[in-house]
């Protein structure tokens, strides 16, 4: 009978395409940063599919935030280790 809803990957591609004009207006460095954010969201597509949210972009934004927070936590831990090494 075929699919009755686009797959989460199709939804992701559509959302990314919807921001194509925004991306084009950014500076090159910002374009790369935006690409990184979408790449981060892509890592959690299976979770986004399981969530089956009516507004998938909200799930993608949360995935981006998740990856950013993981990076903050990693940097914080490294900083603590460096501080510990300096104080030792």
């Amino acid at each position, binding site marked *: *009978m075929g*699919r*009755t809803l686009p797959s989460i990957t199709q*939804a992701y591609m559509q959302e990314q395409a919807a921001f194509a004009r925004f991306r084009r207006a950014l500076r090159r460095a910002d374009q790369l940063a935006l690409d990184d954010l979408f790449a981060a969201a892509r890592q959690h597509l299976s979770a986004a599919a399981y969530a089956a949210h*009516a*507004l*998938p972009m909200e799930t993608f934004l949360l995935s981006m935030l998740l990856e950013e927070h993981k990076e903050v936590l990693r940097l914080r831990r490294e900083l603590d280790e460096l501080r510990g090494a300096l104080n030792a």
Partner: protein
Amino acid sequence: MDALTLPLNNQLLVMTAPHAAVPMMLELAARLALTGDLRVLDGGNRFNVYPVARSVRRYTAELTSALARIHLARAFTCYQASAMLAEMPADARPLLAIDLLATFYDESVRVDESRRLLAGCITHLQRLSQTAPVVVSAKPPAAPFPERRVLLETLQEAAAGAWQLEALSAPQSPTLWGMEA
């Protein structure tokens, strides 16, 4: 979409467009869902809930309750479409039939059989339009099947209003030497 004034009158409207006016029908579904229950009969498996959800979210934060007001049924054969319409009670809920003729264009169903089923469907659409607005979207048949065009014409003739939607031509951009060819 802007030409369709809400609330719609109790009548049968038919919109014809190359892609069965799907974006317009989805926007109409979103707007109708803001105010009350509605029925959607999807004949071409074209009801994509993501654009509807986005559209609803633009008007209200009550996304879940608005989406719950949309009662969706998908027909994968013209027999199913015919049976669904026959069993549908006439009440005050508007009906949107998206790409209704898609299953009637199926080449494995004889043209006279499709015509017979469509005639029954039109009777039921008119019955339903006595108590609620009924908006039907349809697309013309594919080029290799011109004999199926009679189905679209029959549907348009039965409607109280029939709209033919056409894509706007791309605007011409001026160049240094005048307009582009």
